[in-house]
Every structure is written in C-alpha cells, then in structure tokens.
C-alpha cells in the first residue's frame, strides 16, 4: 500500500505551550483515520500543519510524497479540507460554489464540469444544484461544504467535525459519502466529537491529549487497552445469605463487590456467564428487582485515557 501521510516527531509550540509534542504516524492509501481528543488536545494544530497553514517547529511531514517545507503548493493541490465552519457563499448557487472553489486548483477546464457534477452527486445535491445555499437546511449546507472540498479529487481529505449540528439523515448521508470516497481511493482524516461516527467509518483510531498520541489502533485494539470487560449490576431484594466467594469462583469473573444490596460483578467480556451468576444468586436464596450490564466502549476508553468525556 502506498504511504500517503508520513509524520515523524512533529512539534509545534505556542510560546511555552506545546500544542503538538513530537507525534509520529503514517497513513496508507484508502485508509480512514478517526482523530479523537478533547478540546486543546492538538488535533486542530495537527490538521493546520498538514494543510500547510501552520509551519511545524520540528519534525518531518510528507504528504503524497511531497515534503511539507519544500513543496507546500504541491501538497495543497493534493489535499481537500472540510473545515468545521461552513465555508460557502450563501448568495450563489450550490453549483457555482463548487465550481468556484474547484477552479482554485490546477484542473483542466474540460474536466471541471464533470468534477463539479461528480462532487454534487456524491453528497446528494445534484438535484438542488441551481439553488442558493441560503435556502438549504443545515445538513445540506454541510454536504455542500464537503462537495466544495472534494471536487478537485484530492488524495488526502481532512475533515474537521463535518457533521456538527445536523440531522441524523444528513449525518448518515455524509458517512456514506465518506465510505464512497474511500472506495474511490481517497485517504481520510476524520476529526470529530461523535464517537459513534468514528466507530462506524474509521479503520484506525488515534486519540490525542495534551499534544501527544496517547492511544492508536483499531476499535477492538483500543477497547483491549482499557480492559475488555462487562460490568453487571444487580439490585437485590435480599443479600443476607449471599456468599460472594461463590460468585468470585465462577470462571471469567474478575471482581465482585456487594454493598447495601447492590451487587457489582466484573467479568471478561468474551465470557458468557450471566446465567451462571443468576443461578448462583438463586442458589443463595437471592432475588433481584433490576439488573443492568455495561460493556467497555470507545467512550470508556477515552474517559479512562484522558480523564475527560469526548464532548467536554
């Protein structure tokens, strides 16, 4: 697989503050990288460096084989940025928007019509192309925002929270569009605060905090880091006869805690042991009113690694 992004020991400081503190990673062609991190983690600085807007203080960056310091214009020609803000003109038609922004890239005049059409089709706005964005819903504007960034067929697409504040239907459309772009060979960096989006589309997830990459891997690999477990909670009606030791002895149980008729049992996620726990409770003469279970998720991983919720 061809390497599209190669970053080694990237650093960026704002005065004494290290916004990016020596990160390294690579991306191969057709890969979707989900970039997660709380506010101030260094995601935007990294994105701004990759888009050549900011100069790094240290480190090497190569995008599509071009050195960031030596060939910034060649890099710009090969990347498409979907900014968090809606970067579109409201007073001209959707088609004119895409045409104007695509025209800023070196494209053959003959290709432009086809590329504009292709971009609008991809985001599902072909039939609204003659309308002005000021008449669009928030979701449609977001889709146009994407079309303007991809019409020149960039090899690397960087999306910075492209689905903020839109309806589920538009969100699904955008996520499907991103998968289509990958199928066409685009490499995508997807920065978001929505964990479920990353789970749905990313091949690999990178979590940043305080300027460094604190975890990286597939969803399954990250969940493994945080301990792949299931936590069961029982609200018991009576617990005076319960022998906690008997529950602890069930294979796969890692921890048992009983306090004021609240029983918490932690187990390895892969083990199917709920029936054994319930049988043991009945054997001990215990009945319960309510039972809940919770599995380790990306949200749990994120919380454990950063100490913050993603949307904080």
């Amino acid at each position: 697989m061809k390497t599209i992004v190669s970053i080694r020991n990237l650093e960026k400081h704002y005065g004494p503050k290290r916004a990016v503190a020596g990160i390294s990673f690579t991306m191969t062609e057709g890969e979707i990288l989900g970039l997660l991190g709380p506010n101030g983690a260094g995601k935007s600085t990294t994105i701004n460096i990759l888009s050549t807007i900011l100069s790094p203080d240290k480190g090497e960056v190569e995008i599509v084989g071009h050195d960031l310091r030596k060939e910034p214009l060649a890099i710009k020609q090969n990347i498409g940025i979907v900014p968090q803000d809606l970067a579109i003109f409201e007073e001209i038609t959707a088609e004119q928007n895409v045409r104007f922004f695509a025209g800023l890239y070196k494209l053959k005049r003959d290709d432009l019509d086809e590329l504009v059409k292709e971009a609008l089709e991809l985001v599902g706005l072909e039939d609204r192309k003659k309308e002005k964005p000021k008449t669009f819903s928030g979701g449609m504007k977001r889709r146009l925002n994407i079309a303007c960034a991809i019409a020149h067929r960039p090899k690397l697409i960087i999306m910075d929270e492209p689905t903020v504040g839109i309806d589920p239907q538009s969100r699904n459309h955008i996520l499907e569009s991103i998968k289509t772009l990958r199928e066409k060979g685009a490499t995508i960096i997807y920065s978001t605060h929505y964990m479920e989006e990353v789970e749905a589309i990313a091949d690999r997830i990178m979590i940043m905090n305080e300027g460094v990459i604190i975890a990286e891997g597939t969803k399954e690999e990250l969940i493994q880091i945080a301990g792949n477990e299931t936590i069961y909670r029982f609200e018991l009606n009576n617990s005076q006869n319960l022998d906690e030791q008997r529950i602890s002895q069930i294979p796969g149980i890692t921890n048992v805690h009983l306090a004021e008729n609240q029983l918490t049992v932690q187990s390895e996620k892969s083990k199917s042991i709920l029936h054994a726990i319930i049988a043991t409770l009945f054997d001990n003469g215990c009945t319960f009113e309510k039972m809940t279970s919770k599995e380790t998720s990306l949200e749990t991983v994120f919380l454990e690694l950063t100490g913050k919720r993603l949307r904080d």
Partner: protein
Amino acid sequence: MRFLKIAAFDFRNIIRNPTLLFSNMVLPLVLIGVMGFVTQSFFGSGLLSSYDYYGITMITLSALLVIMTATNAFMEEQVKKANIRMIYAPIAKAEIYLSKILSTFLVGTLSFIFILMIGQYGFGINFGGDHLPYIVILISMLVLFGSCFGTMMCCVLGDEEKASSISQLPVLLFSAFGGIFFSTYGLGKTVAFLSNVSPVKWIVECAFRIIYDNDFTLLLPVTLSLLGASAVCILVCQLTFKPEEFTC
C-alpha cells in the same frame, strides 16, 4: 488566471451587496445634494456654486470611505469564512489580499466615474468639463489608496469591525482638517498646519486647481504620493497577513 478569477468573483460579491453598492454609487450623490442644498446661500452666484464645492469634497470623502468597502470585501463574516478555502487552495497568500484590493478598486473607480459623469452631465456640477479625465485619474488613485489601506487594516487587525472603526478616525480627521466639510482658511496657524499635513487637503486643492485654474502642477506629486502610499500598504499586507488566523 486564477488571480483574475478570484478578483472577478470578489467583484461580483461586492456588487451583489446592496449596502456596498449604495455607499459607493448613491450615497456620494446624496451627500453632494444635501451639503450643496444646505450651504447654497453661503456661495452666492459666483463661479463656484455650493454643489461644485461639495461635489469635489464629498466625492473625495466618499472615495476615501472605500476603505469600508475594502474591509467588508475582505473580512465580512460570510466572506471571511468562505475565504478559508482560498487559504487551503494552492494559491499564494498575496493573491488573496491583492484580489480584494483589485476588486474594491474596480468597483470604486467605476462607481465614481458614474457619479462624476452623472454629476457633470446630469446635474450640471462642475467636475472639470474637458478636464474631467484628470479628476477621474485623481479620484481613482484615491480609491486605490483607500482599497489598499482598508485591506492593510484588515491584515494588521484581522477583523472587519476593528479595521473599519479604527480607519474611520484618521479619515474623519484628515477630512475635517482637509476642508471637506468647511473651509479651514483663516482658522489660525495650528489649523493651517494640520490642514497642510492632511492628504485630503492636497487632493481637494489639486482638483480645484485643475478645474478652475487649469493648473496641473499638483496632479503628478499627489498621484505619485497616493501610489507610493498604496505600495506601502501592500507591503504591510504582505508582512502582516497571516492565513492561519482565518482558520482559528
């Protein structure tokens, strides 16, 4: 080619904006009409009518106020957001601010040519008769300076509102001491000194000398000074324009 495409696009954006269109094409005529009407009794029936006097002074003031058009064309909220894409595109940063200067200059120049023509041939205001092309050159240079100055203020301050409000202060001071609203003649040495350092005074003086004295001696130095000042503004743009500020 891409630079011209961006400039043409910016040009269309300005003329689509009714407020900018009004301030460049209608407001100067309104100002001339109001000031000329209110002060006509002070001017008598001599060679110079109140409309002739305020025709030149109000056009000079309006041409300077192109600064506001420039700041709006560069950093009005909607335009600024869309400009983010230009920053991501493979174009030099100079093309971004130069396109704003060029588009503002073209809109301003065309507007003032229209106003001068309407004023002279429609309302009978004396804008120089056969010498009208020289007045057009003079006002165009002032529009160029206004376009460059407004864009420079945006590059330095990074914000339309700040750039507009801060720019208004020197414009008003130079205009007041330059004799735009009332003649400063006979108001004492201090006012005379301040009047002499006001570029507006020399532009108005130059225009009146061309129109009434057939005297072109000030045209070249005033034009070159405005061109030089515009070049300085462009240099400051290049040094201070930070594209990354658009993305933050």
